[in-house]
Each structure stands twice: as C-alpha cells, then as structure tokens.
C-alpha cells in the first residue's frame, strides 16, 4: 500500500503531560512529551495506556491533533460512562505521566502532496485528526484548496474555534450547528444532508480527496451523500469512532 512507512516495533513510551488546554466544557487537549517519539503523519493516532496502583491497565486510541513536528497533542472528549476519558479530561494535570505508543495507521493520512482539492468533514471530536492535517497544511505553506465542513452541536462545542476563525490562506471553514445556534447565526443549522453537501462540496469532476471523521452515523451520512454526488468511493477515506470511553 502506497505511503506505508516501514515501522519497527511500536514500543511503549513514557509520556509526560506538559500542557492541558480546555477546548470546550467536555473536550481537552493534552500536550505530551515522550522521549523516543519518532514523529507522525497528519491523520494518524496513538494508543494510551494507563496503569493504576495494583497494576490494572486500560488502553485506548486517540487521534493526534498536532501537526507533524509540533509538540505532540491529543484531543479527548469526555464520555460520561467512560473509564479513561474522565481521567484524561478531568483528572490529569501537568507533570502527570502515562504510557503511549504509535503512531498508528497509514491510510487516513494527508502528507500535503498532490494538487487535488481536499475536503475535510468532521463530526464533533472527529475534527482532531483533520486538525492535524489543517495545521500541517499551514506549516508547510501548502496552497492546496481545502475546505473543512465541521458539524457541532452548538457554537460552544466547536473545538479549536479560535484557531479555525483565523484560517491559513486557501482554507475555507464551514460550520453547521445541529442543536443550538447563537443569536444572529446565519450558517447551517442542521445535520449534514444531500443539499448541504451539494452546496459545500466541490463537484466530483474536480477530483477532491476526502477525509471524514466522526461517529459511524455521521460518517455514513456524509460518505453516502458524496457517493451519490458521483465521488468515487476510493476517493473517500473515513475514520469512525464508536465506544472510546
């Protein structure tokens, strides 16, 4: 498969939390320092392993939100019945340590190559790996036409909101707020549907590359809509999250 780098064994590394950014009331980004981290490609994820006194361990996967070459950042959404996310969102503080290994995944990645426009479609915290691509695009000065279509429940639930309000050249950001909207909101206010995709997505004839990340239902709705618009299925790369508590 093109683009798959040859990897050695992914060993567990000790990561230290060096910063924690509250992105929204339910979402936090942890900035990590891990000796031996070999870097990543935009879109990849990593595994976290927590160990309790007594030896009990729990592992979860999280997308990397930082660009390659930046301090390593993962973004975690609090799940009420979760086991790991409450710890990472509410408990962890600077100086705490846990283990990680990665990077993982060689398909849902964007290296900044190619001239085709790039369509990024995010549902909720599914924006994290797409943000790595957006930050990478800015870091390398890419002029690739890029659109982010980002569905959130409300304006307060928009992750990376300030950063997305100052997009790098050639990046367009289109929000849709599905549950509540601030007064005076003139943007989209519904779930992604065929009409909305028809207005935001390039025609299939322009050959866009597509990355979609969100819940299964969200991803299926967006991907099915694009296939109906004539997008070749292989031009659409998806990442779906289910239980990641």
């Amino acid at each position, binding site marked *: 498969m093109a683009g798959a780098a040859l*990897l050695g064994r992914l060993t567990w590394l000790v990561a230290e939390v060096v910063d924690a950014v509250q992105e929204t009331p339910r979402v936090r980004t942890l900035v990590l320092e891990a000796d031996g981290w070999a870097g990543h490609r935009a879109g990849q994820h990593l595994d976290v392993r927590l160990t309790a*006194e007594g030896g*009990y361990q729990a592992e979860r996967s999280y997308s990397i939100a930082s660009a390659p070459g930046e301090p390593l950042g993962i973004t975690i959404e609090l799940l009420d019945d979760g086991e790991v996310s409450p*710890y990472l969102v509410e408990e962890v503080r600077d100086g705490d*340590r846990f283990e990680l290994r990665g990077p993982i995944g060689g398909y849902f990645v964007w290296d900044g190559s190619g001239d085709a426009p790039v369509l990024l479609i995010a549902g909720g915290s599914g924006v994290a790996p797409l943000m790595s691509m957006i930050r990478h695009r800015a870091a390398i000065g890419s002029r690739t036409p890029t659109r982010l279509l980002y569905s959130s429940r409300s304006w307060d639930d928009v992750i990376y909101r300030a950063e997305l309000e100052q997009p790098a050249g050639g990046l367009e950001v289109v929000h849709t707020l599905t549950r509540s909207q601030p007064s005076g909101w003139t943007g989209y206010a519904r779930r992604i549907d065929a009409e909305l995709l028809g207005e935001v997505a390039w025609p299939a004839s322009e050959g866009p590359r597509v990355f979609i990340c969100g819940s299964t239902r969200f991803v299926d709705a967006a991907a099915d809509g694009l296939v109906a618009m004539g997008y070749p299925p292989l031009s659409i790369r998806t990442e779906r999250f289910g*239980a990641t508590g």
Partner: protein
Amino acid sequence: MSIISRGFRGRGRDGPPDRVPPGQYVTDDFPVLSAGPTPRTPLDQWTFSITGGAEPVSWTWDELRALPSEEITKDIHCVTKWSKLDTSWEGVSVDTLLEAVEHEAAYVMAFCDGGYTTNLPLEDVSDGKAWVAYTYGGEPLDPEHGGPARLLVPHLYFWKSAKWVRSLDLRDEDEPGFWESNGYHIRGDPWLEQRYWGD
C-alpha cells in the same frame, strides 16, 4: 515495568479474564471500523467466489443461502480495544465452501466490495474457525456491519472478519492485505496482543 498513572483507578476488569484479551475492554455497543464508504451491492448481483484452486467456484446469494449453515455464538475483539461477548451469528462454515475446491494452498486473501482485503493462513479459516456470516442477532446483517455477508474469524482481531466479503483467493504465500499493509499485524491474535507490526 509500567509507570503508575497518578489518580487513575479504572473500573477493573469488566469481563471474565479468560474471555477478555490483554488491553481490551468490554462494550455492549457494536462500533464500526471502516476505511471508506459503506458499499451496497444488490443481492441479485452478489456472488461469492473462491479462486486460486484447480477451478474457480462461485455461488449466487440464493446458492450460498441454500448451503448448510451454522449458528455461531462467539466473543469478538476489535484492535481498537473493544471486545463484545456472546455475539450470535448465522453463516456458512468456510470448511463447507472449501470442500468445493481442489487445492493445496496455505494462505487465503479475502477480497471485499469497497476494495478492502485481508490475509489469513488457511489454518485460521479451517476446522470450524471461520464462517461467511449473513445474520447477526437473528437479523440480516446490516450493511454498516458488513452485510449482506462478512467473513467471521472470531479468534483473530476483528479486522480479519472482513466486511462485504466477496471472494477468497487461495495462495501459496502470505501477503499483507489492507490494514496489514498499513501498520497492523500480519496475523492479529488478540491473546498475543498482535495489534501492530512487530508485536
């Protein structure tokens, strides 16, 4: 020796230890892991084939459904860390399908709608270890979970249970499939925690 994560207590093992492999947690959900859109092939255009033997063989949907089927209740383990216990399926044993083919192969590559592939040693799909499954929980298998039919190889990580499976190609040598070319382990035994390359 792992470091202790300050303040982490966890919930403790949430399933019988002999049924939940290392690094896994039990969920009642049925999450989906797919690399692209969900393909939808009409049943009247659907076939299942085995290639790479003395002669290629193929079954239509109705022919496959007419083969002897089995009810299967197994635990499944996804490489993304969730395990789901006592999932119930109905399908045709891969042993039954392979009886129709003369071959001396040691490996198979599964091919699926949507372009997905996954590789398996023949012994991992023989002797009652693998099925082509078409119902889940007594209902026709949903497209998002691989319907109309998916491979079911529950003793390996669930990406080996290829969704939307359409053919098995019999081979002399092992070659990596889709996820196996993208960083995931060539065999994927959850009890050995064979998640990624080098595990």
